[in-house]
């Protein structure tokens, strides 16, 4: 790996450009670089690892011990990527990936457009929106946020804090924070009570998967040390300048409150598909994960020629599957660019596919057991749906009532919903599901926000300083 220090160090053209230096991006780079392809990895974080292996390259030993094997297992992949001849630019925001294979990149306040013969989007996942009253109060963070602090800086919440929600990450973080010596006052578990029964159909696959023994041990360990309040059906964060209390209800029982300095929320993750959707890749609604999945073929290829997706960006499968799917994308790039023939590609892919099939066995149960309850995927009347523009649930349902069938893009025009700086990342799923419920149709029929480049804000000065070609000038200057 050749770590670049500034945007000018990027070559104008690469064989393969990979967006994201998490497990899928690093594995894709390793696979492609093994066939002498000219590879660049662009990542907006200060170091490689993505979210799962964030900070791992420089983490001191006691931090690694606290975070455990799901974290330290990344060392192997990091070493493998570091040995490749790939270029790597940290702190690089990719704000465009066009169907004509151009990438808009911004780093340290300067932008460039580079080209590549293939693009692999390895953008991973982000946490689902969790629209409850008070979720915008300072002191309310996501569980993923608290885990980032622990991984990159060894920083933990102090005083009284509670975890609330559902999903594997919530339990993993609970055990990690316990080993740091900082115990939350409670876990407010929103997993619906009937959910594990419903998921039983997928239990045999889970029990025989490698996830099972680890999951049982983890939940036992955490439940023995932290009070777990199960069957939570309503949550609200309260406070003035910052959160000071979390109120919850379990079914018909009267509501109760806990004083807290911090509330950490989590209800699963969804693909970070901002770039792929903006590029125009076809997406489909996943009923089992309640989110959008860009459509891909067995090699990760999207509906756009020469753009592939590796890892969680096309559907949540976890870090171990992500690295295998990254390798498949890298192998396929080597084949499409003439370095190996399809037969050699297929041969090299066979063991990866066997591993992927094995990992997928346990995944179905996880999806079913931890799919957040509908009540927490849509917003109540007074709850902010769009944090940026402060649009509440009531405003959306009222508009749907008065204007009939309406889609997410019309909501933008009427309400500015989804038009703030986060560009819909924190409200798109909520809005789609609220409209679908109101119209009595599937989210697939509702669609999502139309996304446009730049997918992250860049300054006008950056735009203006991009080199102009004759055609660009001709388009705007009268000659």
């Amino acid at each position, binding site marked *: 790996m050749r770590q670049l220090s500034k945007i000018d160090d990027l070559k104008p053209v690469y064989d393969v450009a990979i967006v994201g230096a998490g497990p899928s991006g690093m594995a894709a780079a390793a696979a492609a670089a093994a066939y002498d392809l000219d590879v660049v990895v662009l990542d*907006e*974080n*200060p170091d490689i690892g993505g*979210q799962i292996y964030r*900070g791992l390259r*420089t*983490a*001191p030993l*006691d*931090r690694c011990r*606290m975070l455990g094997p799901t974290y330290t297992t990344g060392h192997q992949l990091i070493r493998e990527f570091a040995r490749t001849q790939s270029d790597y630019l940290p*702190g690089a925001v990719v704000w465009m990936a066009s169907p004509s294979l151009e990438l808009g990149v911004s780093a340290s*306040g300067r932008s460039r457009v580079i080209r590549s013969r293939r693009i692999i989007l390895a953008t991973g996942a*982000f*946490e689902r929106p969790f629209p409850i009253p008070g979720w*915008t*109060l*300072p*002191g*309310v*963070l*996501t569980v*993923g*946020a*608290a885990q*980032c*602090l622990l991984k*990159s*800086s*060894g*920083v*933990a*919440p*102090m*005083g009284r804090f509670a975890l609330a929600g559902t999903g594997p990450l919530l339990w993993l973080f609970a055990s990690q924070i316990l080993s*740091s*010596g*900082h115990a939350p006052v409670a876990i407010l578990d929103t997993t619906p009570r009937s959910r594990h029964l419903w998921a039983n159909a997928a239990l045999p696959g889970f029990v025989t998967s490698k996830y099972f023994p680890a999951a049982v041990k983890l939940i036992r360990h955490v439940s023995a040390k932290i009070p777990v309040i199960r069957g939570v059906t309503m949550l609200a964060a309260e406070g003035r*300048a*910052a959160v000071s209390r979390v109120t919850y209800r379990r079914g018909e029982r009267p509501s109760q409150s806990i004083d807290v*300095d911090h509330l950490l929320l989590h209800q699963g993750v969804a693909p*970070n598909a901002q770039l792929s959707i903006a590029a125009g890749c076809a997406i489909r609604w996943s009923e089992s994960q309640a989110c959008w999945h860009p459509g891909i073929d067995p090699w990760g290829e999207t509906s756009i020629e020469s753009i592939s997706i590796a890892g969680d960006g096309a559907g949540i499968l976890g870090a171990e599957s992500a690295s295998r799917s990254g390798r498949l994308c890298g192998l396929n790039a080597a084949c499409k660019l003439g370095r190996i023939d399809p037969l050699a590609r297929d041969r090299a892919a066979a063991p990866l596919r066997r591993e992927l099939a094995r990992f997928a066995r346990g995944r179905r149960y996880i999806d079913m057991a931890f799919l957040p309850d509908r009540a927490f995927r849509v917003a109540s009347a007074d709850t902010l749906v769009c*944090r*940026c*523009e*402060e649009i509440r649930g009531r405003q959306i349902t009222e508009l749907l009532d008065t204007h009939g069938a309406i889609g997410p893009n019309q909501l933008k025009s009427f309400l500015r919903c989804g038009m*703030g*700086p*986060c560009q819909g*990342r*924190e409200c798109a799923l909520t809005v789609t599901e609220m409209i679908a419920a109101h119209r009595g149709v599937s989210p697939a029929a509702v669609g999502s926000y139309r996304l446009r480049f730049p997918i*992250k*804000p860049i300054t006008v000065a950056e735009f203006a300083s991009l080199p102009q070609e004759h055609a660009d000038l001709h388009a705007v200057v009268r000659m």
Partner: protein
Amino acid sequence: MFVRIADGEGKRVVVLIDDAPFEGRQGDSVATVLLLAGKVGCRRSFVSGEPRGPYCMMGVCFECLVRVDGIDGLQACMIPIRPKMRIETSIARA
């Protein structure tokens, strides 16, 4: 509050948060030192003026926007601290 658990021997980096010196460590992001300094709220909503602070810590939510070395609207969670960096929250300015 957030605290640094005694681990590692990271290099000390002193930044200015709303004109007050604060000692962070190499590898901390601007949002991390804000939380360590007790500034859980670092800006006001453009719409209602309600306080907001770091939420996702990974560049998704755009809640931790601050002014860094005179440039406004930057994502605090995505910027590593540097010596003598000037960090200004909009809550302190209002």
